[in-house]
């Protein structure tokens, strides 16, 4: 699909245009694919820390088995995350050389901090986490698990800071002019704590926790429906349900905070998110809708003046609309920004509803009898993934036409020497390789889930007599 789009645009456009479209397609494709995995690693990391912590506290083997099982799946998401992450880093230099020069002083230092503090920590302890179960004490192993988890959290800090600086630049000065202009740090902490960093980071973290928690919920709901590993799965499901409930609720607050920063610092993006054209009039808050860019209208179901109420607690409050900006400074894909944003919010609400319902049944003591709810959790695994993707689409498409908001246009950020054919070559390559990678991921994930939490040689959770028979029969 991506390729077809890229090829279609090759005809009848200037060569620069081809490169820009192809390079943007390649970036969108590779970053979307990459972003399936790091949130899973962060979220599973949190769950593994809780599981192993419970094992150390209670001494119950079931928590260790659970943690080992999820470690094997974590290894998979981490490995793909590293491989596809290197692609992202290299792409800044290969496809976006002008951007690299422009932001190197700032983006680069955040990336370097990520490498030095986060990746070194993660990779250092990863080997012990995955292969060290029989080689180090359980306490040291726990330290390794916490180390890998913290490393992934730090990684999210630095990369979100770097992206937030592109949304709301702060603590910099511009040196040089025209094509040679670039941003330099003047105040490091102002750069790190730029107006959107903290709100967006918490939003990203929690999105990642939800991705991990819902994967755990999905797999254990599946086991419960199939009647496999019942005791272990009930425990794991409850752990993940607690995490999912707390964080799907708290995501409301970080989401609201993020919207507030957008209103203050990126009014054009906010206007696109709600399809609000009127330069300064009351703005509606839509539940669903459709934006007609040509006619400058948005039709849908919503609360009239609701956006002003959300921001100023006043239904008549004026909100800056798209018409307040010159045509060339507005996001190009207004309806897409609108739709992605509203889908993300809708998914967030569904997650809250699902988790609260499950907590209600848990409280009534009937959680595991609700087969339909368990089936809903089996499939709900895709929802946080979609919300994470859509949220980023909103943030990045809403920032257009800027790559650094108000400072550098995306069309100026390209590598000047790279040709359309080169980008086409790499785009085809990535499409093929990522298709194989996705197939690998699903195949291995499925295999690990089918294999289950127990090894062949374990005394597992089948009835006691069967286990005794296995020992007597020499199978163990």
């Amino acid at each position, binding site marked *: 699909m991506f390729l077809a789009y890229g090829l279609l645009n090759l005809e009848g456009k200037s060569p620069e245009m081809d490169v820009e479209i192809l390079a943007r397609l390649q970036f969108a494709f590779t970053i979307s694919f990459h972003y399936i995995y790091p949130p899973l690693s962060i979220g599973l990391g949190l769950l593994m820390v809780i599981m192993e912590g419970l094992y150390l506290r209670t001494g119950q083997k079931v928590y260790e088995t659970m943690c080992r099982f999820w470690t094997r799946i974590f290894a998979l998401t981490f490995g793909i995350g590293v491989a596809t992450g290197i692609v992202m880093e290299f792409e800044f230099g290969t496809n*976006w050389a002008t951007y690299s*020069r422009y932001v190197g002083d700032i983006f680069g*230092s955040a990336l*370097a901090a990520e490498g030095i503090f986060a990746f070194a920590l993660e990779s250092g302890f990863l080997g012990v986490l995955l292969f060290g179960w029989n080689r180090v004490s359980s306490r040291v192993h726990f330290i390794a698990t916490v180390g890998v988890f913290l490393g992934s959290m730090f990684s999210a800090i630095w990369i979100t800071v770097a992206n937030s600086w592109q949304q709301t630049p702060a603590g910099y000065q511009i040196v040089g002019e025209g094509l040679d202009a670039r941003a330099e740090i003047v105040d490091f902490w102002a750069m790190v704590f730029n107006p959107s960093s903290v709100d967006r980071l918490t939003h990203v973290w929690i999105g990642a926790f939800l991705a991990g928690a819902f994967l755990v919920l999905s797999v254990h709901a599946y086991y419960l429906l199939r009647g496999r590993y019942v005791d272990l799965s009930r425990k794991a499901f409850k752990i993940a349900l607690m995490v999912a409930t707390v964080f799907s609720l708290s995501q409301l607050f970080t989401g609201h905070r993020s919207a507030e920063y957008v209103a203050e610092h990126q009014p054009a993006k906010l206007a696109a998110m709600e399809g609000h054209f009127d330069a300064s009039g009351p703005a509606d808050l839509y539940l669903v809708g459709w934006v007609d860019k040509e006619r400058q209208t948005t039709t849908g179901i919503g609360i009239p003046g609701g956006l002003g109420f959300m921001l100023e607690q006043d239904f008549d409050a004026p909100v800056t609309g798209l018409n307040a900006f010159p045509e060339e400074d507005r996001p190009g894909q207004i309806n897409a920004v609108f739709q992605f944003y509203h889908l993300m919010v809708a998914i967030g609400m569904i997650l809250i509803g699902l988790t609260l319902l499950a907590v209600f049944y848990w409280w009534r003591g009937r959680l595991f009898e609700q087969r339909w709810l368990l089936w809903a959790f089996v499939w709900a695994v895709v929802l946080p993934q979609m919300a994470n993707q859509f949220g980023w689409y909103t943030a990045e498409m809403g920032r257009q036409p800027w790559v650094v908001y108000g400072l550098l246009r995306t069309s100026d950020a390209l590598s*000047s020497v790279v040709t359309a054919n*080169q980008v086409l070559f790499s785009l085809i390559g990535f499409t093929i390789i990522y298709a194989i990678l996705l197939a690998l991921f699903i195949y291995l994930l499925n*295999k690990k889930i089918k294999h289950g939490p127990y090894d062949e040689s374990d005394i597992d959770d089948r009835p006691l007599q069967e286990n005794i028979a296995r020992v007597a029969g020499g199978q163990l």
Partner: protein
Amino acid sequence: MKLLYLLPLALLLTACGESDAAPGYSSLLGIDYPTLWFLVVGAVFTGYGILDGFDLGAGAWHLFFRKEESRRIALNAVGPVWDGNEVWLVIGGGTLFAGFPVVYGTLFSAMYVPLMLFLFALIFRAISIEFRGKEPMQWWKNLWDVSYSVSSALLAFLLGVVLGNVLLGMPLDDRLEFSGDWLNFINPFAILVGLTALALFMMHGAIYLTMKTEGRLFAKVNKLLQKSIIAFVLLFAILTLYVLLYIPHLSDGLKENPLLLGVPILAILAIANIPRLVSKRKYLPAFVFSTITVGLLLITAAMELYPVIILDSSGAGNDITVYNGVASNKSLGIMLTFVAIGGPLAIGYTAFVYKTFWGKVRLDEHSY
């Protein structure tokens, strides 16, 4: 007595100040920040070369092992560490991007095709490692064995090709952007450096495998090791001659300052020491010396270049140096602080992992 510990710190602080060589840039112990960051980037890439070097090398040998168990042992010898080793590349990329954004943009866009092939091979290699053990069919294992081995060798070769192009220089315009053709990366010198890197890593990897294997596999590795030493020494000799004869800009710096010649001489001594130690069956010291060899060769390359990072081969003098391709003084100061705090930690974790998995490979249920 304890006050003595503060002495180096006090010296360090007094040594800080404005640099004479680079106006606007601070210095530490008489070395200005751009040069210090050049050293940091060099150190991280050297670390990467040493670490991923042996696992790429071990991977390149993979098809030489015939039996299933041998292949599994060879694969699991690098199993716990290859992922962590690759992270050094991510860190290296980050430090280059941050400190020398102009180099990052120009070099990476000039090396578009080899770097994309590098990324493809990197992902294929990871896929092969994960896929191989998951199905029992022989054709399945063979397929991933070939893919693993070929991608490992290709990665080592491409690293050398990119390094070769950096050493050779490339045409640059007055905005310090690449002004050549996308096929520029294919040239005899870069290919020679690529082959030398492959041979060096295969030697390095074979020594690593001798420490991790036993019995007949060990004997086999030992034989292969001898061959790779010969191949590497031959290629290295040709490369040295090539540089001396055809690439004056690399050897001029060393000729002017004979003291610097110590480093390549030490590198040659280190190389000479490897077959001696191998014949005495002292594999750990041999591994230490192949590590030193990788390090010293990269230091030699850095010294040959400095203060230029990418030479303008068009003759217009638009070289990218550590001074015109560098980040701001403020940014470098912040990042040097990061390195001072994070560097020792990173070395600590890495040492801990290697200590945990020290010794011969034992296949267990966590193995690949």
